[in-house]
């Protein structure tokens, strides 16, 4: 028998107090809901980071809708083309030929030849066993002055192997091939926004006389290809780790994964590892730590007992952030996350004691369909992240994704300041979250 799941009186299965929750999967996977507040970038946004590049999507027309809308929102329609797939392509064996011919035609018709072409194939090509390598070989022979990057839009495989997000971040650096390294140069890999210059990580790099390279800072294709010559790779987002690992393997460069953290001990350890890799003495972090604590305390005075809700799109460590805030007196009442990464385990255990009633809430559970206009909407909440803002209905929220470029003790202090700003200023939540991919050109 069908039962209406309106979320008004029973959210069983969609939320659970942390004291009773399983780690790392607190919820049963089933019928899923996708909230309009998306949060992170998608593969189109990320791909646009390659300067002077053009994207070609080969897929069914129905699947094109989302990617084209993203490009349109970014005002980057001139950097995207597409080849639609038809069932006849399977009957006459033209599935691969159409990609080669279509891409070649697109390139010839572009007003300016791109430096790189991101060619996306889709699920149907993978099911049919298309030889993507052969397609790319042929295109490379036709256009030797263009770097072709193999990209994938395969949502049917999003739960096996690398996620589309991880894969896209890995492919973002695919043109980089082994070459002599520039001394004292370091890449920050896999981010879609610059890291604050005030963070201890950036300061360490600059004070040691190293050059920081980051795709988000590249002005042209030369800048981007210079990254191939950097002597050290750093990642701090979990979704970027596979990218750093791939570069380490392919280029033979050292890769350091220094995960974004809200645990002061872990932050200090990561910064010390960085200092060691740079060949410089690690500073005493006491002042930076004390400053972070001081700013957190100031924020607490402003935020008071207002409930704080955090979602996983704001940071890959929402549980870690919740633990930090709870330890500094904030009333953290809810974390929106469907699963937790292993790095969250210590914070998860701490929170079970510190704030056992804190609710973990799924974002994709079918019952969440009504949460945005129903049981969760209570307004008097300080949200960190778009999904938390959407589900709670608050106008007070910190508008960040994937850590927001805030890293280290400085990152904690900056986030605390953003919380104060959010607590004291209202935003038009609906307007802000209407666009996908918060932070891209179309949304600022």
């Amino acid at each position: 028998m069908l039962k209406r799941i309106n979320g008004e009186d029973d959210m069983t299965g969609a939320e659970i107090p942390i004291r009773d929750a399983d780690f790392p999967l607190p919820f049963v996977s089933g019928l899923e809901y996708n909230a309009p507040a998306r949060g992170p970038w998608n593969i189109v946004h990320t791909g646009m980071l390659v300067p002077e590049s053009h994207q070609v999507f080969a897929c069914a027309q129905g699947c094109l809708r989302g990617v084209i809308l993203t490009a349109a929102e970014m005002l980057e329609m001139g950097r995207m083309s597409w080849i639609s797939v038809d069932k006849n392509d399977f009957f006459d064996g033209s599935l691969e030929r159409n990609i080669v011919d279509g891409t070649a035609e697109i390139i010839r018709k572009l007003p300016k030849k791109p430096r790189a072409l991101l060619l996306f194939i889709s699920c149907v090509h993978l099911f049919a066993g298309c030889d993507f390598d052969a397609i790319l070989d042929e295109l490379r022979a036709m256009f030797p002055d263009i770097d072709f990057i193999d990209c994938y839009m395969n949502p049917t495989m999003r739960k096996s192997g690398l996620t589309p997000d991880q894969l896209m971040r890995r492919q973002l650096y695919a043109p980089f091939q082994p070459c002599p390294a520039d001394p004292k140069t370091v890449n920050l890999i896999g981010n879609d926004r610059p890291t604050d210059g005030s963070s201890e990580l950036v300061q360490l790099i600059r004070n040691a006389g190293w050059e920081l390279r980051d795709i988000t800072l590249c002005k042209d294709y030369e800048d981007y290809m210079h990254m191939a010559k950097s002597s050290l790779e750093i990642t701090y987002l979990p979704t970027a780790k596979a990218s750093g690992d791939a570069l380490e393997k392919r280029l033979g460069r050292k890769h350091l994964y220094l995960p974004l953290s809200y645990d002061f001990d872990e932050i200090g350890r990561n910064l010390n590892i960085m200092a060691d890799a740079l060949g410089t003495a690690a500073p005493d972090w006491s002042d930076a730590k004390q400053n972070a604590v001081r700013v957190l305390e100031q924020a607490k005075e402003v935020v008071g007992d207002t409930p704080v809700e955090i979602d996983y799109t704001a940071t890959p460590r929402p549980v870690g952030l919740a633990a930090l805030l709870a330890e500094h007196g904030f009333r953290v009442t809810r974390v929106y996350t469907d699963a937790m990464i292993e790095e969250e385990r210590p914070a998860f255990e701490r929170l079970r004691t510190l704030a056992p009633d804190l609710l973990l809430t799924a974002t994709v559970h079918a019952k969440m369909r009504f949460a945005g206009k129903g049981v969760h909407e209570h307004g008097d909440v300080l949200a960190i992240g778009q999904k938390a803002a959407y589900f709670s209905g608050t106008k007070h929220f910190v508008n960040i994704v994937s850590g927001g470029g805030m890293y280290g003790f400085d990152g904690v202090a900056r986030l605390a300041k953003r919380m104060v700003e959010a607590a004291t200023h209202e935003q038009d939540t609906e307007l802000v979250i209407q666009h996908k991919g918060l932070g891209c050109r179309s949304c600022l």
Partner: protein
Amino acid sequence: MLKLAFYGKGGIGKSTTVSNLASAFAANGLKVMQIGCDPKADSTAALHGGTRIRSILDLVRERGNDFALDEMVRIGDGGVICVEAGGPTPGLGCAGRGIIAALEKLQEKGAYEAYKPDVVLYDVLGDVVCGGFSMPMRKGYADRVFILTSGETMSIYAAANIAMAVKNFKGRGYASLGGFVLNRRNVPDEDGKAAKLAADFDTVVAGALDWSETVQRAEQLGKTVVHAFPESPMAAQYRTLADAVLSIERKGDAPC
């Protein structure tokens, strides 16, 4: 590392021939890996007592990616490393996609680097009916394709189709055609038909195998002929075929 793929019409005797070649190579001191690319997952049965082994797709279905390389293989008679790609439930799913997934999983788990076989034999189901079945002949997999056929019209027709596919893919750096293998069914002018087929594709008949009851007797024992009846004339034929295949490889480029 020699990497050879064997194609041919269904029921022509690919698995029997490939398993006997594996035994013959192994008896000569070579480290052999046999990969069955057939949803039935019975390619290597004669190398381990007629029993079936757990296929890669069985493992993927049961455990996602949570299994180790050594769980994907079973060491059979003569030390042959046996692998079965497996496939979906008959009538459901996509067998070609299954082969792609299995071969990718083998590479991903580093099978070739870990076992370092001297010879890899891909035993591939039937005709090149979709992209999945052409996977073993792609760059990075087999270097040479051998096609089994009898003198029967339908078998020759299928063999010609496969040879045509190999030719079509040649420009892509795929495996080249090593030759045909005649598995005799005692039809009139069988050798002549095979020779004409080879001539049409500018290649050779790499070897010929007689129809023999010894093959059925070995199958009932769950063994290869080379292993069960090493002194038999049939075992000698398999050894001769193994030598011929090696000889084609040693000459460098195959005729086609």
